């Protein structure tokens, strides 16, 4: 007991390895400290009679230190396991610390209360979903961002999307919505002509006449007249049977751009791509010339 004051005078004034000084407070890092502050009444080194409550794995223990055992550092602290229920534990503290100074008793009970509260909270949190904190690796993050930018530049999105859309238009997925005169048809025609030059076919395909079908609906009468005139001019070049002439009328009426010349003679039915199968009705063919007249 007598050393308490001496110890305190030394610790307080000069050095204590458990002491932590901050701007406003002095803390005690000693694990047996009751309040955590560096005070005369709360210092475990400067009090031969001392008690604390500590928690281990969810169990609360009451530690007590008495003068009698101050010579045996090994057995100095007496450890008592407190009950898990708060009420019982408080009663236990009262029982063990019955003749102890009020400060220690009060602080022990407060500490027990705090500990039990945080234990309850921990248990509740464990049951809930926890947000998993994933640390950001700066280098990876930077690398990914840069690669994304580069990929964006390489992607050339607008042109890719445009290309895809045009391809869909060509393929005919949009059906009849768009008014481009026979988009697929024109394409196929061009391809045909390329393929043809080598070929000799005798079939004047029905398709030839079919080609004439669709433009009928789209073209005005005046336009038709003009086109017919043009086609008439072209007719002069051909030396073909009459039946072909009519067909040519139809085919040429809409296809001014295309050089039909030799091609007309050689349209081969079998070379036609399947997607160009258009139904042919002979009647409308004859209608046309009447209309222009």
């Amino acid at each position, binding site marked *: 007991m007598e050393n308490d004051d001496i110890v305190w005078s030394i610790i307080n004034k000069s050095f204590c390895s458990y002491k932590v000084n901050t701007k406003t407070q002095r803390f005690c890092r000693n694990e047996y400290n009751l309040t955590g502050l560096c005070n005369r009444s709360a210092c475990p080194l400067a009090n031969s009679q001392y008690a604390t409550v500590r928690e281990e794995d969810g169990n609360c223990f009451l530690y007590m230190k008495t003068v009698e055992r101050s010579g045996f550092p090994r057995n100095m602290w007496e450890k008592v396991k407190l009950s898990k229920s708060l009420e019982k534990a408080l009663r236990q503290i009262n029982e063990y610390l019955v003749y102890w100074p009020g400060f220690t008793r009060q602080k022990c009970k407060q500490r027990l209360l705090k500990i039990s509260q945080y234990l309850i909270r921990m248990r509740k949190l464990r049951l*809930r*979903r926890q947000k998993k904190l994933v640390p950001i690796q700066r280098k*990876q993050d930077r690398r*990914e*961002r840069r*690669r*994304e930018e*580069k*990929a*964006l530049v*390489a*992607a050339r*999105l*607008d042109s*890719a*999307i*445009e290309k*895809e*859309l*045009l391809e869909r*238009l*060509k393929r005919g*997925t*949009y*059906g009849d*919505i*768009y008014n*481009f005169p026979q*988009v697929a048809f*024109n394409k196929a025609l061009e391809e045909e002509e390329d393929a043809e030059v080598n070929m000799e076919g005798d079939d004047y395909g029905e398709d030839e006449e079919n080609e004439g079908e669709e433009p009928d609906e789209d073209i005005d009468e005046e336009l038709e007249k003009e086109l017919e005139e043009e086609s008439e001019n072209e007719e002069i070049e051909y030396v073909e049977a009459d039946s072909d002439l009519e067909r040519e009328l139809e085919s040429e009426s809409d296809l001014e751009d295309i050089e039909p010349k030799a091609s007309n003679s050689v349209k081969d039915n079998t070379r036609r791509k399947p997607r160009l199968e258009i139904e042919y009705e002979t009647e409308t063919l004859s209608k046309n010339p009447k209309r222009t007249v």
Partner: protein
Amino acid sequence: MESAENAENAEVLVKPPTLTASDRLAAKKRFRTQRRLSTMKNKVLRNAQWATLKKRSERLLFHFIGKKEGQKQRKKEAEALGDKAPPKQIPRTIENTREADITTVDRDDEEVTFDITHDEYESYFSKTYVPKILITSSDNPHSKTIHFIRELTKIFPSSECQWRKRSSVKKMIQSAKEKDYTDVVVINEDRRVPNGMLVSHLPDGPTAYFKISNVKLTKDMKYKNIIKEFTTHRPEVILNNFQTRLGQAVSRMLASLFHYDPQFKGRRAVTFHNQRDYIFFRHHRYEFKSQKRAALRELGPRFTLRLKWLQKGTFDTIEGDYEWIIAGKRHEMETSRRRFFL
């Protein structure tokens, strides 16, 4: 002397024809001397040097031969030579030099196409059902995430947004199944910004987690009030550049979030474009100006996705069967800069 002069004149008159290696070297040299020009502190001397330099190289002033000029020259040469022109040089790109993947899908291979078409999305692609999507967020979403989710509900047709009230994903999936949803999308948030997207196909479908980056909302787009151009027509989906089996799986998953029957009259196109494992999402309104040109107007948000993992069943991080995951395996997976997985 005369001849020398003539020679000089001749030099000046003749334009440097082709850019040979020696030409380039000369240009570099000139460049270097010019660098020295900037270190000359004496103004008189500096100006004199500059004058000589300018006189010497009229076209090759500041840099050695510029890219565009080189291109033009090469084009001219090619035209001049006609058939004999050397083949056009193809620049080496990352896409060109991509490491060949065993799982690249070959359209002609029947087995592969059979496998692909008969996965969990078969019922979608055979048009038996209409997708119904539930979109949620993580707890306490902030304004950006909220806006983002609202926009997603406008993009995915037949989608509903519900706020997460501290329910776990597994429970959410259960209740969504009971209410006949076909897909669940959960947007994860970090630092007030959406950063992750979990897509889960409901009746035991695959689950994928993407990392979202570069989110740009509709209100931040170039055109003001573009939100007025949003219609309720069902958009058509464009999936570009998904080459491997994994890529196909992911693309089918993303496609199945939209209605199988788009309304072409609405002229809305939603694109998922894969480039080097980054999936760029764009939402456009298109208009065909002619057969060769289409005009695009960007509506809607844009964001980038990056696949983090793909799981076979519904969400189960502990016992789930991961088809592909890169989270802890970066060193194994990212072996080369030319290796991509999608």
